[in-house]
């Protein structure tokens, strides 16, 4: 479990740097850039919720609630 936590930390760091780099190189509002940044945000959100907050051990309704929330957020933020 500890190894999984460490691996997730490394993945989160890489994803965060990727998002930062992507935002830096794209000075215009490219739709694909926005989509990629939001998809990476969703992955980071779910990674923390499932592994660090142990949502993976919760009832599936809790998992569905959080997945639906973060996907709805990303879609809404992307469509605006």
């Amino acid at each position, binding site marked *: *479990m*500890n190894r999984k*936590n*460490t691996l*997730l*930390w490394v993945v*989160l*760091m890489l994803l*965060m740097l990727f*998002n*930062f780099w992507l*935002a*830096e190189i794209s000075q215009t*509002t490219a739709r694909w850039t*926005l989509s990629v*940044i*939001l998809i990476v*945000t969703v992955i*980071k*959100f779910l990674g*923390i*919720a499932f*592994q*660090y*907050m*142990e*949502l993976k*051990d*919760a*009832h599936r*309704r*809790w998992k569905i*609630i*959080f997945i639906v*929330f973060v996907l*709805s*957020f990303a879609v*809404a*933020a992307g469509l*605006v």
Partner: protein
Amino acid sequence: MEQAKSFLYPPGGILIWIIVLMEVLTFGIALIVFRVNFHQDYDTFLNSQNMLSKNIGLFNTVVLITSGYFMATVIVKIKQSRIKGAIKWMFFTIGTGLLFLFVKGWEYSIKIAEGHSFGYDDFFDFYWMLTSFHFIHVLVGVVILSVLLFKLRKGDYGASNFLDIETGGVFWHMCDLIWILLFPVLYLLH
């Protein structure tokens, strides 16, 4: 019956998960409203967004995610009955939490010195409301973890009795989740 029971008893307890859900919903809705306003007054918002220090935001993201990793390690250690290890990692968690608050406070002082305080424009109104509300959550989290650390050192928790630590950990990770949403929307997306 078993499924119903586990729905009522998620890790850390149902109350903290209801709080987490309410908090992420509130911040999520606020950030969507921010995005709507961004596109209604694009030039002003973009200009103000460019005044933010992305590097400070990035640094604080590293600090907070690392703090979440430390907190997850506390839970691992306590489940293994390694209380000294749990105490050590709890110190690290609180330390990184304090570092986040210090860096955020420093960023605030820079913004105030530049005249970009609350009321400067709509962008900075959102910036101050959202980040200061999050700041308060982190501050409350540090206080909660400090109390838990005190009780942990007293020997109040062990491998079969760590619900409070787990609940405090879920609250702490909630601060991560909120920041994970705040950082890209406030600092990166335009």
